[in-house]
Structure formats: C-alpha cells, structure tokens
C-alpha cells in the first residue's frame, strides 16, 4: 500500500529541511520494520521517498504491507522449580499465564523453564500508521525548536499548520499540537494559496508542481541552476559555481524564478572576495563572471514568486546590494589608509580569548612557535615566517573583516600586497587559515602551512590549559577542526617533528609546563587522526599503528602503510604472526598483573633447545631489525624479519612452558619474550589487531 504524509508549516530554516527528511525516512523505515509492515513481499522493504520545501516536509512510502503477518512468540517465565509443585502449577505460574493472557493449561516446561507460545495478531497498516506518524512528527530532532500560541508540550522548528496523511487514498488520523490531519495540502504561499486534495503517491509531485511547488529537492535545485544560468546569460556571463549557495537557495523557495541585476562598474575595484561575500553572504545572490572567471558587474537573485514586473524587484535587489557595496567600498578605502604593520599594535587592545591574553600576545607566540617549527622541520624561510606571523592577525582590526569575518586572511593578503609586502608573506597570511573546512584546499607553501600549524597548536594548548576542551558534541571553539587542520597539513607536507616537543614549546609560550595537559591534547589529536586514517585503512590497523609510542605523525603514517601492505599481501601468514604476538602480549600482561618482574634475559640459563633457538634467532635479527626501524624506517624489512622468526616462535610455544614452576626459569623465559616483544613494538600494537587465533 502507498502512504502519503506531509507536514505543512510556516517557513522552515533552509538548513533544517534535509536533515529532518533523512531522520524521518530512517525512522519510518525502522518503525515499519518493527511493526512488520515494511513490505508487501518477502524480504523487501517499503520504498521511501522524501520531499521538502520551506513550507513542508513529506514522505511517500510505497509497498507497505496492508496487514502485519500474525506471528507466534515464545515467552519464557519462571523456573520450573518454582512453577510446579507436586505436578501442579503454582501461584507464580498462574501469574505468568495471566500476564501472557493465556490459560495455565497452555504452559509447558522447556529446559527447566516455563514457556508459553503466544499468538500475536498482526496489526493492519491503517491501524498502526497513525501512531507511527505521530511518533515521527514529535521526534524530529531539529537544531532548535519552538513553542507557539498557548500550546503546551509539542514543539517544532516553526508553527505547524497542516498535516496530511493517507494510505491508498484513505485518510489517516494524526494529531500534533492543535492540528488534526486532513487529506488536504496547500500549494505555493502566493501563487496557489488555497487548499487542494492530497494527491495520491503517484500524483503527488505532479499535482504540487501544478500548484506552483517543486516539491522534489533535486528537481528544484536543477531548476534553480537552469534559471540562474539563463539569467546570467542575459547579463552576458555565467554564474560563479557555488554549491553551498545553491543548496541554501533551494531551501528558500518553492518555485524559483531568477532575476539578473547589475551594479556600478566602479565597485569592481573591490577585491573579488569582498564582492562575492557581499552578494552571497547576506543577499544569497549568485555572482556572475565571464568565461575567464573574471567577475562582471552583475548578479542573479532567485525569487520565490513570478512577479508581475521583474524590473520592480530587480530595482529592489540592486538597491540593497548598492547600499552594501557602498559600505564595503567605505571600509576598503578607510582600511587602506593605515598599513597592516601599523595595525599590529592595535591588537594589544583586543582580547584573543578570555584567559589567553590579547591578540598581540597571540601573534608574538605564533612568531616564536612557527620559528620553532621551522627549526624542528627545517622547512620554510625564517624571515618570511616571522613577518607573516606578525602580520597574520592584523586584518582583524579592519572594518572589512569586522563586517565580514569570513574574509579574515583574504583581506590580510589584499591589504599586505597593497602595502608592498613581499608576495610570499602576503600569501602566507591568507594560507595559514587553510583548510577552513573538510573540502577546502591546503596551503601551497611552507610559510602558510607552518604558521597555520602554529596557530592551531597555540589555540589547542591554550584552551586545553583552561579546561575548555570539547565535550560530547559541543565544540564551541572549533578544536576538532583545528586538530584536523594540524593533521592534514602535517601529513600532506610531510613535516617531521615530535608532537610532544611541539606541544611543550606551545605550552612554554603560554607560560606553562604540564605533561598531563600535553597528554590530553595528544590523545585528542590521536582520536582525530584515527578518524582521518580510517578512511584509508581498516579500523584495527589504524589503532594498532597509532599506538606504537611515536609522536611523529609521519612515522605513524608510515607504520600504518606498512602494516596495511603486509596485511593485504600475505594475509594468512600475517594473521598467524600477529596472533602469536598477541599471545606474547597477553602472557606479558598477565605476568605484570601477577607482579612478576623478570630481570634481564640470560642465555646460559636456557635449558630447552626451542628456547635456545628463539634466543639465538632473536639475537641474530636484532641488529637488522632495530636498524631497519630506527634509521631507515624500513618497516617492511622489519616485518620480513618478523615473518622469518615465526617458525621459531611457534616451536617455542609448542615445546616450552613459560610459566615454569621454577621461578628462575619462568622469569628468564618472560624476559626473553619481553625483549622479543619490545624489539617489534614500533611496528604495531598487535594487541589491538583483530585476527583469527593461530592454529
């Protein structure tokens, strides 16, 4: 059977619509399954399509079972001992039968327990769905919800005006807030304001299209693209591609109409970043460019209505933008009256973050820390780095960045070039903010990259020091993004440094020395690194490679690559080796629990041939392995040595009992295993690998 379900409300925030739909669809799918209504046929699922506009959230599910199948359910009750006495059912048994809704005669004993088979009648979809749908309306997790009128209890993103629900055309009763469902919907707020009968599942999209609502997100988004391209062509250009803006605008209209508008050519003197921010940020206009990507003095606005005369609204769009661009021009002219260098001093009057001093103190720390990173990595030009660090936050005092915070860095670069600052330094001022998000590009040069790492380390160390680390989903200072920035830039550019040393240097600049604090930052970084690397490797490999003691990100990455390579190349052999090492790890851990503290290994103490063989083999590969690990970072060679050792290790376990009653023997064997374990420890923490037991 087909379900049509629509919640009609006042205009929902654009960013709420898709997440709400995803949740609703998943929830309906789950609840249908729970109610055994998920499919008409065996092993199928109802097909759920989702639709949203600013004024509605809708689900259409096809292939719902008309009625859930009856099932037999086995309930288990008290133990037989309590349920029967002298062959008769006790009070406990009677109580159980009553609760299950059966006669005592239906009870049986199975595996020393009383059980009963219950016949559960399947519910008809039409009976179950109203409850399911109410659960869905009440449960949508909006980022912010509100109450309205005098209503108590129910909250929604914006006031709800109608709910329409029907199963194969038959209305379903659904109640929420002060709304009772009716099989009616509404068209476009202005173009088709009246009520219309709720269309069937098949006709829903087409019927709403007729009522001036493009209810399908993808269709609407496509139409906007076409409209915007058409209008931009009218203005003699093409729209500047902007997927985020397209997504937002799709959430702002039910039926799109694009209108091209123009602004004075003189405004093109403003940096393109500024023009684009002015257009897209508040106004949600698309910028228009020529084929070479140069901005034209034009824009495209997307209207929700086909107005009588587009020239009227065009005039409106242009006026608003003109006022904004005049403001922008004013800021640009004012800002350039003072060089960036002269603004640095002003940073002394701005608090960076409560408890972390002024912005001036911050750039002084950044200067030192980026020079420290230069020293540690040997990358970048120290003179450029120092200058970029000093200037990198100066644009925060400009009017333009005050108005458009997202232009920080971009304005710094523009103003620096305007002051005649060396281009590499100006570029670093911009690039130290990269990447600004998961999709953003990384810095192209060392100066911006190192300064960016310093900036983020300073922020993390500072905030962790104040106890303001992220908790749960709350991350008000963007520390997850900062951590990810450090990791991505360091890995991509291959910077080698010891993170603990870097954190120590950052702490020192904050006037602190706190090993526990560094450990917390490191664990946080490690957590993000795990997430980052999990895209490329199995989760347990990532775990095993990262917990190998090193605080050099590149070394950790190399260890992971080697581990993955070996694991994939010779799976079976590797699994066996890893299992043996897990076993060794377990033995050592248990020994430690029992507070056994083996001293150094002594070869002359060895009695058994298998033990002697292992000791000899270990000795033989020791130099080779530690050389491969420490100097050459040739992890594959170390894995090869490890594989060669395996027969000897296997033999050892076959023939030797580690936990010998003779304490001297036992301790000596533990010491042997420990030095074996320690030798290969930099490869991986084998205890974290999920492998089959060795046979």
């Amino acid at each position, binding site marked *: 059977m087909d379900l049509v379900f629509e919640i009609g409300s*006042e*205009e*929902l*925030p*654009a*960013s709420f619509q898709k997440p709400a739909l995803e949740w609703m669809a998943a929830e309906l799918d789950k609840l249908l399954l729970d109610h055994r209504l998920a499919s008409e046929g065996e092993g199928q699922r109802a097909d759920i399509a989702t639709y949203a506009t*600013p004024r509605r959230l809708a689900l259409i599910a096809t292939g719902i079972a008309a009625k859930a199948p009856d099932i037999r359910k086995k309930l288990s009750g008290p133990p037989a001992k309590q349920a029967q006495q002298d062959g008769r059912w006790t009070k406990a048994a009677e109580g159980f039968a009553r609760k299950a809704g059966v006669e005592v005669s239906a009870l049986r004993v199975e595996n020393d327990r009383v059980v009963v088979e219950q016949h559960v009648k399947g519910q008809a979809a039409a009976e179950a769905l109203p409850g399911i749908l109410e659960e869905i309306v009440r449960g949508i997790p909006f980022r*912010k919800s*509100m*109450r*309205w*009128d*005098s209503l*108590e209890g129910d909250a929604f*993103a*914006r*006031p709800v*005006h109608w709910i329409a629900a029907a199963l194969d055309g038959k209305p379903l009763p659904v109640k929420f807030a*002060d709304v009772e469902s009716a099989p009616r919907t509404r068209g476009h*707020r*202005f173009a088709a304001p009246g009520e219309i009968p709720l269309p069937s599942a098949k006709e829903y999209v087409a019927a709403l299209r007729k009522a001036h609502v493009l209810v399908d997100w993808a269709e609407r988004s496509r139409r906007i693209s076409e409209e915007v391209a058409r209008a931009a062509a009218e203005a003699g250009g093409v729209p500047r591609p902007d997927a985020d803006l397209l997504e937002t605008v799709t959430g*702002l*209209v039910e039926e799109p109409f694009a*209108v091209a508008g123009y602004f004075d050519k003189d405004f093109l003197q403003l940096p393109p970043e500024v023009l684009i921010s002015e257009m897209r940020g508040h*106004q*949600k*206009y698309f910028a228009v460019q020529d084929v070479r990507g140069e901005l034209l003095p034009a824009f495209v*606005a997307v*209207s*929700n*209505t086909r*107005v*009588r*005369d587009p020239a*009227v*609204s065009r*005039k*409106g*769009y242009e*006026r*608003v*933008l*003109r*006022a904004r661009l*005049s*403001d922008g021009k004013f800021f640009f002219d004012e800002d350039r009256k003072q060089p960036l260098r002269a603004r640095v001093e002003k940073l002394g*009057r*701005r*608090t960076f973050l*409560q408890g972390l001093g002024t912005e001036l103190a911050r750039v002084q720390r950044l200067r030192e820390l980026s020079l420290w990173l230069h020293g540690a990595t040997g990358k970048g030009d120290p003179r450029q780095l120092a200058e970029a660090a000093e200037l990198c936050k100066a644009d925060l005092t400009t009017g333009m960045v005050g108005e458009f915070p997202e232009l920080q860095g971009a304005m710094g670069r523009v103003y620096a070039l305007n002051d005649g600052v060396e281009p590499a330094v100006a570029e670093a001022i911009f690039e130290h903010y990269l990447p600004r998000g998961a999709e953003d590009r990384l810095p192209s040069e060392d100066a911006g990259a190192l300064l960016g790492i310093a900036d983020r380390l300073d922020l993390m160390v500072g905030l962790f020091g104040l106890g303001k680390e992220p908790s749960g989903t709350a991350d008000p200072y963007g520390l997850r993004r900062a951590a990810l920035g450090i990791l991505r830039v360091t890995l991509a550019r291959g910077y080698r440094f010891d993170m603990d040393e870097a954190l120590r240097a950052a702490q020192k600049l904050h006037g602190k020395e706190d090993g526990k604090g560094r450990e917390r930052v490191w664990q946080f970084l490690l957590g993000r690194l795990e997430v980052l690397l999990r895209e490329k490797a199995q989760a347990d490999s990532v775990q095993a490679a990262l917990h190998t003691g090193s605080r050099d990100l590149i070394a950790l990455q190399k260890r992971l690559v080697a581990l993955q390579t070996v694991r994939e190349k010779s799976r079976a052999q590797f699994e066996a080796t890893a299992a043996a090492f897990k076993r060794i790890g377990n033995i050592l851990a248990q020994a430690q629990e029992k507070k056994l503290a083996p001293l150094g290994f002594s070869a002359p103490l060895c009695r058994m041939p298998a033990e002697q063989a292992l000791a000899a083999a270990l000795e033989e590969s020791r130099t080779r392995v530690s050389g491969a690990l420490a100097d050459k970072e040739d992890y594959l060679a170390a894995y090869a040595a490890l594989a060669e050792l395996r027969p000897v290790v296997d033999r050892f376990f076959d023939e030797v009992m580690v936990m010998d009653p003779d304490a001297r023997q036992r301790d000596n064997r533990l010491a042997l295993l420990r030095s074996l374990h320690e030798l290969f420890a930099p490869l991986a923490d084998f205890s974290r690998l999920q492998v089959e037991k060795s046979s």
Partner: protein
Amino acid sequence: MGAPRDFQGLLLALQSYWAERGCALMQGYDLEVGAGTMNPATFLKVLGPEPWNVAYVEPSRRPADGRFGENPNRLHQHHQYQVILKPSPKDVQEQYLGSLRAIGITSEDHDLRFVEDDWESPTLGAWGLGWEVWCDGMEVTQFTYFQQAGGFECRPVSAELTYGLERIAMYLQGVDDIYDLVFCTYPDGTRLTYRDVFWQNEREQSEYSFHASDADRLLRLFDEYEKECRALVEKKLPLPAYDYCLKCSHAFNLLDARGAISVTERQAYILRVRRLAHDCATLYLATRARMKFPSLKDRALAEKELARYHDLLDGKDGKAGRG
C-alpha cells in the same frame, strides 16, 4: 491601497491597519531605549498569561550607529514600528502580509520571503525564533516568536513584529539617502524632509556619544542607576525599577560607543544589566500573580496559571519558570 507617499503616511497606514485588528495603539516609551522590545509594553507585558495586543512607534537609540548625519543608511536614532500579539494568532503571517499590502507592498509585485533569523537579547535575557522578512532582498521586518524574556519561559508565546520604518520608507519613496525622505507635505506643497527634522539631532548626538560624553560620569551614573533599580526592587516597585534598568542599558550603550569599556569588561556590564532585567521581570510577574492576573478574562484559567507562579508568590528566590 496605494503606497503611503510620505514617512508619516507610512506610520498612519500601519497604525490604522493594526488598530483595526484590535491592537492598543500606544506611544514609544519616554526613556531612551535601543529597540521597541525594551519598552515595558513589550518586555514586561509578554511575561505571564495575560493577553496583550499592542502597536507603537519606538524611536530607538543606538549610540554606536551614529554617523554624524553623513551616512545615507545609518542613524543614531531610527524608528521601529512594534507590534505584539499575545498569544501569537494562528494566522499571524497572513495578518502581517496584510499589513505590507496596506503600505503598498504586495506579493504580486514583490519577492516576499521569510528567511530564518533567530533573535536574542543578552541584556534582556530574551530570545525567540522567527525570520527576517525580505522584500526584494531587503530586510523589512524582524518577525519573532518570543520563547523567553527576562529568563522566564513565555507562556503563552507572543509574536513580535518589528518594522524598520526608515528602510521601508526609503524603499517606498525610492530614495537612496535617508535624509531625502519626505516626512510630510505642507498644504502649500513644500516638503518637510527627514533632514529638516532629524539631521541636527544626528550630528549632535553623534558628537555627544563619540566625543563629548564624560566616561567617568557615565560610569558613575551606571552605578547609581543600578543602585536605584535594586532599591526599587527591594521596595517591590517593578515598573519604576525597570525604568532604571533601561537607564543602565542606555548608559552602557553610551560607554560602549565611547570605547570606554574593554572587551573583557563588556561581558560583565551586559551581565549586570541582565540581572536587573531578570529581577524586574521576576517582581513584575509576582506582582501580576498577586493580583491574580486581572486582565485574564477566563478566571478558571487564571487560577490554573497561578499555580505555575506559586514559587514567586511565596517570596522565594524567584527561580520559578526559569528556563
């Protein structure tokens, strides 16, 4: 209906529209406020269960926005048209769109849009959800469903409509400079402009807020106003107390414009005003509750609502209903 031709025609059109819909027409408050929301006809009246529909023009002072009469878009004092509908009616959006029609802004000719914009006033401990309403890309109204005020949950919820009058007038009159707005036309056809009425005020007030004000004196005044507010709260006089809370808020705005408050101190001052606003709100609610919410016609409902404010009546710490 045609578009109002001058600034006061716009006010008149809105006044008669909302008067017809049962709003009490009131006046802007006679103390300095930064927005119509701070007028007790909004801030205090949205508290508690008593219904309230009101509309008024609020001259709103923002000392930091002063531009010496030289900026075509920014003013030290602009005018808001403020409407409160409590409880928020089911058709409030339609009523609002009707008001735009009454001033000549129709959906046939303009792109009208409700775009998400949540509102929050840290100094008033108030927040709400709603939209900024766009007419051809220009924000003409802030539309808010009040969820909290003075730290108290709003039950019922009020709808607040705040029209930016100068902006709308500029749009309707097709001028790019605020000062070119026609305020009204004399019988002989001469026009009184916004410049004639307000330019000197803009100049002098900007001069005052940015240069002439005495920061030390303002700081002392802030302290004194705060003391007065507290003393009046002690004496159980919420309305006079709230006046001094407004005085504090304005003194703070002046100090802020003067650059006399550092970033770190800023937060502390905001908190001090918020505490006063909360105390006034608490006392106002307690006082209305003691009077058994007299303007609630449904007495049975009034009794029921009283239970919600029980804690306030017992003279406890005033935490009842805080969100």
